[in-house]
């Protein structure tokens, strides 16, 4: 036993520790997602998960590190992206400064309106990131699976974990984060979770909702209303900054993923299997896209309403045809 005892202190410090360090370094290097995204003519037809505007430009993100952008009247172009991760959300703080997030807690940053991207955050063992929102050029938040909430105050250089501030003891997924016109932050998530922060993320409260299915999308209207979209056609609106929520009635049955408010006050909500709702909150009509591709998000460029989802880019025909 004697020699063994003699080696024991050495064992941890000189042998095991370097091994642990090597292992942790190895884990980082082991990621297979840090790889130039494959340039493909078909990127605009691949699975795209979010779309937003950067000034006049549309920017969409999706599977395999695909980021594509389009200026008005131009064709889609694929950006240079250093990862092939599943990118789930994109958001621009200004017309040039933007962020995209994805699995393995990957956060990408662009300063040229989406043409090229740099990797600013990556933890292989961390949960997927699912939503992103900035309040200014420096302060921003991302949400993700298993109660993940990260915050940056230096424009994305460093990120701190903020999940402990959320009243979410079961660690349900946080699926979406937005702000309203008054800079209040809202998070929607699994099991009907809705959170609000009125102090730029310092503290959070849960909002009451009479529904315990998952919410996937959240958007604010210019009028200041909030709309939450969820499983199997569940759709809720709040006209009092989240204090109370009412279910919106319509004939759709598919899960709703996201949407936006049109200039005339109508809502456009997109969902699974090509279903989308259009109309004023109290008279939503149901449409189905031929091909029935699931839709995740929608954005506007001039007169075009561009939805993304399975099959990539889909231009929504906003006529009364295709009524179910």
């Amino acid at each position, binding site marked *: 036993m004697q020699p063994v005892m003699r080696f024991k202190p050495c064992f941890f410090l000189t042998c095991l520790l370097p091994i642990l360090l090597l292992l942790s370094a190895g884990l980082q290097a082991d990621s*297979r997602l840090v790889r130039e995204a494959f340039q493909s003519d078909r990127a605009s037809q691949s699975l795209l998960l979010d779309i937003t505007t950067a000034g006049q430009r549309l920017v969409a993100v999706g599977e395999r590190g695909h980021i594509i952008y389009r200026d008005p009247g131009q064709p889609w172009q694929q950006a240079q992206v250093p990862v092939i991760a599943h990118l789930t959300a994109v958001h621009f703080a200004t017309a040039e400064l933007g962020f995209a997030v994805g699995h393995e807690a990957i956060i990408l940053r662009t300063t040229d309106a989406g043409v090229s991207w740099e990797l600013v955050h990556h933890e*292989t063992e961390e949960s*997927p990131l*699912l939503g992103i929102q900035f309040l200014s050029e420096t302060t921003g938040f991302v949400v993700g699976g298993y109660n993940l909430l990260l915050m940056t105050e230096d424009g994305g250089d460093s990120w701190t974990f903020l999940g402990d501030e959320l009243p979410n003891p079961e660690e349900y997924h946080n*699926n979406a984060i937005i702000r309203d016109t008054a800079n209040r932050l809202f998070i929607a998530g699994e099991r009907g979770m809705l959170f609000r922060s009125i102090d730029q993320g310092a503290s959070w409260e849960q909002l009451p909702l009479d529904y315990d299915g998952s919410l996937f999308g959240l958007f604010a209207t210019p009028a200041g209303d909030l709309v939450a979209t969820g499983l199997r056609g569940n759709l809720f609106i709040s006209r009092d900054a989240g204090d109370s929520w009412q279910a919106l009635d319509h004939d759709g049955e598919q899960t709703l993923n996201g949407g936006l408010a049109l200039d005339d006050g109508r809502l456009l909500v997109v969902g699974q299997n090509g279903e989308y709702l259009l109309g004023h909150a109290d008279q939503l009509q149901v449409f189905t896209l031929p091909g029935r591709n699931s839709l995740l998000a929608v954005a506007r460029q001039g007169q075009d309403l561009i939805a993304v989802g399975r099959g990539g880019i889909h231009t929504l025909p906003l006529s009364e045809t295709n009524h179910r």
Partner: protein
Amino acid sequence: MNTTHTKAPAIENLFFNWRPLWLIFFLLVTVFLGSQALQVKPEASFEKLIPLSHPYIENFMERQNDLRGLGNAVRLAVTVKDPSQDIFTAEYMERLQQVYDEVRFLPGVDQSAVRSLWDPAVRWTQVTEEGFEGGTVIPDTYDASQESLDTLRENVLKSGQVGILIANDFRSTIVLAPLVDSVDGQPLDYQAFSHALEDIRAALSDEQFDIRIIGFAKLVGDLIDGATQVAFFFVIALGITFVLLFLYSRCFKSSIIPLVCSVIAVIWQLGLLKLMGYGLDPYSMLVPFLVFAIAVSHGVQVINAMAIEASHGHDRLTAARLAFRGLYVAGILALVSDAIGFMTLLFIDIQVIQELAIAAALGVAVIILTNLVLLPLLMSYLGVGKTSVIRAERKRQETSELWHRVSFFSHKSVAPWSLLAALLLGVMGFVGSTNLQIGDLDEGAPELRPDSRYNLDNAYITRNYATSADVLVVMVETPEQACVSYEALEAVDRLEWQMRNVEGVQGSMSPAYITKRVIAGFNEGNLKWETLSRNQFVLNQAMSNLPAGMINNQCDLLPVILYLEDHKADTLVRVTRAVEAFAAENNSEHARFMLAAGSAGIEAATNEEIARAQTFMLIFVYAVVAALVFITFRSWRAVICIVAPLGLTSVLCQALMAQLGIGVKVATLPVIALGVGIGVDYGIYIYSRLRQYLREGENLQDAYYHTLRSTGKAVSFTGLTLAIGVGTWVFSPIKFQADMGILLTFMFLWNMIGALWLLPAFARYLLKDPSKA
């Protein structure tokens, strides 16, 4: 003919001194082999059509059992005829159930693997607040009521099977039936299986519903059925040949005996094939024609020689002996070089081609006995008819205007122009032949005609379903029990995407693809989770839902299925190169990317083997023919005179193929070897006569004139009979037989022209003209 005074060689005495004994021998052998020949059955197997030692195929064979269902399967699309109707009617569902039941119990079908709407394994799923919801697509409570049909319609939409089992237009659905290799220890009989499918089609389609069937087994069944019809062409060829022989000889005996002997050659060939354990597949189905045509052409030489000898006043026996004596060297040489020419096809590592080589070589070897021996023996009893002899005598005395003109091809003022024209043709042919392509150039099953039932069905299914029938499977090998590893799946996923970006790839399917969808399903259908997880638990759980054929028992193989737009040679090369490039970059201890299974994978391997063998085979067949000619005539001048015109024909034939859009494939590869092997006969017969007359001191043009007088007519007649024998194939319902017919007809005719036109031109410069010596 001045062979009268030469001494009878031993071989002649061997046959002619024992004539009755030999005739009895021939009779007995014919009866025995005839009884064998009657048992020859048409057959075809998958393995015989593919190059077994190609690395792609070796990989495939090794993994065949793990790829069950990805290999050999037939698809039956049960369709609604009325354009205003769809599949959601009680009548349709009932009919579909009948088809499903019939197909499942067909011998040869892997019963448990049959997929259809009626299969309980075909399910729909849906995410709810409580988790997954799902069930069979046809509801358990299905009672043909409108209500249950409405439920069915909804389930179909939720099942994700639209484009796979259900047509995009909802007017047909597929019954997919994977096949087993053998039934009760016997290899699957494709013809019988195909007929059983036809029975189902006949019984269960009517003015309301139709059944469309595709798959390798159906294709082979149709090929065998079509190829068997060539028996009819055989009868036609027989009739035409008889008429020609009669016009040629004006003698019934001289017409019927060569035909009988030639048919005996075919009987012997088929009987020997059966004895050696071979059958007739759609590719070697044409060999008996070829043997018959070659036999007739040699028979004509014998009859022609006998008539000439008889016109010199010899009796039947002497005339027969002299004809034999004058022809046996050239005849045996010609037939042996035919046989060896065919044998060069053995170098191609595709069994149907090898069997075709053996069958053809056997056939021409048999002709030596039937038409060079049996024919003169029979004629020594029967004799050439009087009219025929008188004609030969009269012809011999009068000068022939036609042959006189042809003899000018050897003249010093014509020969150089002939050679120049040949050179120009050769250059043109060479330029044209550079467009020659390997493999299939058309869509569908190019073995059959574009308007055949099979190709119409194939076009229908390709049009109405998302997945094409041209499938290339990349086999991804992982360590045992490690097929679920993140590293392997991630690499598979990347391969899949890169391949989807290769021109000609229409879509893909892989365990990674399905796993991703299942993972999204576990996450309430949220597509933001539709990616591979690093969490092994998640992967294990997702992959436990993989359908059969996507994962094997040892968990060491992941198939990546690429659906191609077509199976044109260019497409196959482009895709396989892309896979190989990916493999070279990404092979690791976690995953090795190997080609190839699936119809397109096998075709890619076949194309490579054919491209490799094509040049090699051409060089070899020419080398063999040249060597044989050299050994026989002991002169390199003879080699040029005889072989150079053949070369022109080969080049022109390749240009013709390119022009007609016929690719080099299993069916057409043998054509050039066959053409060269048979084409050399003309040269040999002409050259041997020409040399003889030159040795007797005649000048070149006279010698060539006399050659033409004695054998030119036989040679041109031979070219014609051969061309007619194969020309009837043009009407075959099988496209590749028609293609072979066109090409062989061209080669036989052009070889004849080459021999009559170019051989004397070469002779002008290469052979000594004794009159000038």
